């Protein structure tokens, strides 16, 4: 299989600029994500990381246009997929993109397949909806896909109902469904958080293989920095609907600039440390408090209330994302941080 070169000379596959998504609430509206900028080139893996409530799922739902019309107040900015803006496109063109250029791998492997149909039938259904192929060809393609997902006996899995499969197998089937129409980009919504730890790594490896062998660009969200360090080329850290830090994964992990990123990295438990300290009353690191209520107006830095570094100024002025000194020599991705203490470039 051929490696896809990762260069910046080409146009980005997905280019999100100044995206703000507003949701209707009883007392008016609230921006669940604010001024999001993301740029993904072909063949890259970008991981968005944050707690629940950070806006990472809303970012994905905005890209997939899956926010129910009843809830949605409106979008600002642009989501360009191969140069065409999803937000100004008519519904029919949007439908065409789904599955063809962009597809979703969902979080809940256990519940994301229809329990009433054999899994093979479900993949065939997706293929027939978007490609002009015969049923027999669709079936052949499905078996082939299942084989590529590392499934040893694809014929048997094809004939199985979802309840007969383990979580890991179901997640493989879901990835096969997402790939069934050769999308350019896969959006993966916490694809491993519902799985056993032993299976998580298999699924991550599979996604890496897909990225390498099919050249599929992957945008993934997670709350787990372990996944970031295993998978990501680029990382985006989100907090309360804003990007607080972004950059190449190695820069952000090796030299985190935002206190939130630092805290998240500290939250990863080191088993040896826990074991050796389990008797002397030390507790694991955690971030005090919780993600702020976005329906209330926040002046200043949104993380200030929970930040270990916060000073009086933090709760008065909202910091902008600014460029910081990147460790790596590669210049194709700026390292940005939304903190007044970030060391500037």
């Amino acid at each position: 299989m051929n490696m896809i070169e990762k260069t910046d000379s080409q146009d980005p596959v997905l280019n999100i600029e100044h995206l703000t998504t507003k949701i209707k609430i009883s007392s008016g509206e609230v921006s669940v994500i604010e001024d999001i900028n993301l740029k993904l080139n072909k063949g890259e893996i970008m991981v968005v990381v944050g707690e629940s409530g950070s806006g990472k799922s809303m970012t994905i739902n905005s890209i997939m246009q899956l926010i129910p019309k009843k809830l949605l107040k409106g979008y600002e900015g642009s989501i360009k997929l191969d140069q065409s803006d999803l937000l100004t496109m008519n519904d029919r063109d949007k439908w065409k993109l789904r599955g063809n250029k962009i597809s979703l791998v969902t979080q809940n492997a256990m519940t994301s397949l229809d329990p009433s149909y054999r899994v093979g039938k479900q993949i065939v259904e997706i293929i027939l909806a978007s490609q002009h192929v015969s049923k027999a060809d669709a079936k052949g393609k499905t078996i082939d896909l299942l084989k590529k997902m590392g499934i040893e006996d694809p014929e048997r899995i094809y004939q199985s109902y979802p309840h007969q499969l383990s979580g890991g197998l179901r997640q493989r089937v879901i990835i096969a469904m997402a790939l069934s129409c050769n999308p350019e980009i896969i959006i993966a919504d916490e694809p491993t958080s519902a799985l056993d730890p032993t299976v998580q790594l298999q699924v991550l490896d599979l996604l890496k293989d897909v990225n390498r062998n099919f050249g599929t660009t992957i945008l993934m969200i997670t709350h787990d920095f372990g996944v970031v360090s295993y998978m990501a080329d680029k990382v985006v850290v989100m907090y309360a609907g804003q990007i607080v830090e972004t950059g190449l994964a190695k820069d952000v992990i090796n030299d985190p600039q935002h206190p939130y990123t630092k805290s998240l990295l500290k939250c990863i438990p080191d088993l040896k440390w826990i074991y050796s300290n389990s008797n002397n009353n030390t507790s694991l690191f955690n971030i005090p408090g919780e993600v702020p209520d976005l329906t209330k107006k926040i002046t200043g830095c949104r993380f200030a209330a929970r930040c270990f570094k916060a000073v009086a100024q933090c709760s008065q002025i909202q910091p902008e994302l600014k460029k910081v000194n990147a460790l790596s020599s590669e210049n194709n991705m700026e390292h940005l941080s939304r903190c007044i203490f970030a060391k500037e470039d």
Partner: protein
Amino acid sequence: MYKYIISRLLYVIPVLIGVTILVFLMIHLIPGDPAQTILGGEATKSALAKLRSQMGLDQPLIIQYFDWLKKIITGNLGFSYTLHMNIASELLPKFWNSIILTLASLVIAIILGVGSGVLSAIYKGSIFDKVFMAISSIGASIPVFWIALMLMWLLALQYPIFPINGMVNMRGNGGPLDLLYHLVLPAFATSLVSVAVIAQLTRNAVLDEIKKDYVSFFKSFNLSKVHINIFHVLRNALPPIINIIGLQVGYIIGGALFSEIVFSWPGVGQAMYTAISSKDYPMIQAGILLIACGFVFVNLIVDIINIMINPKLHESVSK
């Protein structure tokens, strides 16, 4: 799957035996002596005794039961002393008429009930949803005979679009169109309550299903909403809907008895009404037996359908 179906079929046997015992005992619980009823108040004791032994009434109850069971299994439903004719030849054609009315009501109830329930769920909170749900919660509590009378008053008397009655001979010269014409009002009257009940349950079942993960996953592909709603949402909402339809069949059978009387539909209900008025016990017994068997049979079908559409009961492929 076949294992479940066969065990369900076997389960019918004790139920049917229970039905026959209840129906048989019922006639013996009713006060009064059938021989006395037949011969009248001035019959002599010897005449009564003679008739009793002719009818087998002097035998022990258990022997009477098995005699009767032997007869009904061979299709002999007994003899009506008020109509002076064989019950089977009188009741069976009427039973078919009742089945026509029941099936027509059932079809209306399923189409309108499931259809409007699905639409209400999909357009939850819309004006259609609110108005329809308000109407159906009122509709579910109106008795059939009142609806029948109101429909008759409105659509047969005030605006004579449909006939009041006159369906005397179903296999007469009118043909199927004439049958349909006479069927409209009684079938609607019988089905309306069930439409409301089925619609409410369908709405809830679909609402439960529509928020499941697989629905939003399938929405992320270019499948049309109609396709997803029919082949995935409704498909998975089916088991509770089929169950409520099965229960509503019992209600429709009961409601059809009223409609038959109001609209003079020549069915079992009307025959039962006449039989009850004239204390024709063997006729009542046979009528109840037929209706009960019909109900048991419908429940059997509902259960078999539910077994067939549940993949978890299919033969396992992966084990």
